[in-house]
């Protein structure tokens, strides 16, 4: 592994355990804080949406259409693996179509 990969794993491990430890030590106070609670509730969903937006930025129309297919499957199935499979199938089929 490259040093960047080692660094990524190391920093992510420290960050991950650090958050858990903070939850153990001061979690009650943080989670019950009326200013922080809505922030902590809203942040994960927004981050996911931001990730979707950044991975679609600058992509061709076929990728956006595959994302719509994945969204429809996600709404109906609410299952990560099923959505990944459907999204992959959609993009592979999309690339085979003559007009894309």
């Amino acid at each position, binding site marked *: 592994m490259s040093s960047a990969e080692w660094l990524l794993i190391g920093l992510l491990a420290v960050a*991950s355990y650090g958050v858990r430890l903070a939850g*153990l030590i001061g979690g009650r106070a943080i989670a019950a804080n009326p200013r922080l609670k809505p922030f902590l509730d809203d942040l994960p969903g927004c981050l996911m949406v*931001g990730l979707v937006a950044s991975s679609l930025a*600058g992509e061709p129309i076929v990728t956006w259409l595959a*994302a719509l297919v994945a969204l429809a499957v996600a709404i109906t199935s609410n299952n990560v693996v099923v959505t990944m499979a459907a999204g*992959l199938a959609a993009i592979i089929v999309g690339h085979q179509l003559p007009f894309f």
Partner: protein
Amino acid sequence: MKQGFLSILPLAAGAALYGFAFGVLAAQIGFPWWGVALMSGVVHAGSSQIVAVEQFGSHGFVLGAVLAGAALNLRYLGIIASLSEVLRDVPLRVKLLAIHITGDENWALTMARRAHDPTIGAAFLIGSGLTMISVWVISTSAGALIGGAIPDLEGYGLGFAFTAAFIAMARAMWRGRRTVLPWAVTFVVTLGLVQAGMGAAYAIVLGSLVGVFTAQMRRARREETA
């Protein structure tokens, strides 16, 4: 503990499929199987790992990738905090282990069972957590072993599997109509920032913060008018 170990198995099977898919993708980006196993063992946070590896793979920038992955993990503040009753009577070293092996699935199962049966406690949490982390390490490294042996799938749009996973994870975080505005703002701002040339991980964190603050401002305004 044995009860927890066994009760979590159906949920662990779901996580195994997801872990396998993550392993394949991580190997395609260049991680060896043992690196994936190491990461799963020491980080033990599914969505955080997938986000960090995707960001690292597409931009090669460590700090941005860690920032995006760690921000996603902030929900564990609340998850671990809610365990203070469950972990009250166990020794510190057991607490320090329990918080590492606690994931979304075994936390949710422990809390749900405990609501009906007060004898469900730390042993159940730890038993189910041990199953989850073992299944996570094994499934992700198995995925990486397979993913490292097959040719480059990027040409087939494999990277899109990550996008689809993010869409599905967002779906699971949907909280009804109040989610519409912050999500729409986040989507548009992040898209705009990336198009304008900002690094993706920073654009994601900044776009999300703008989305969260939009929701906070609307809530504050509603309270004023109420």
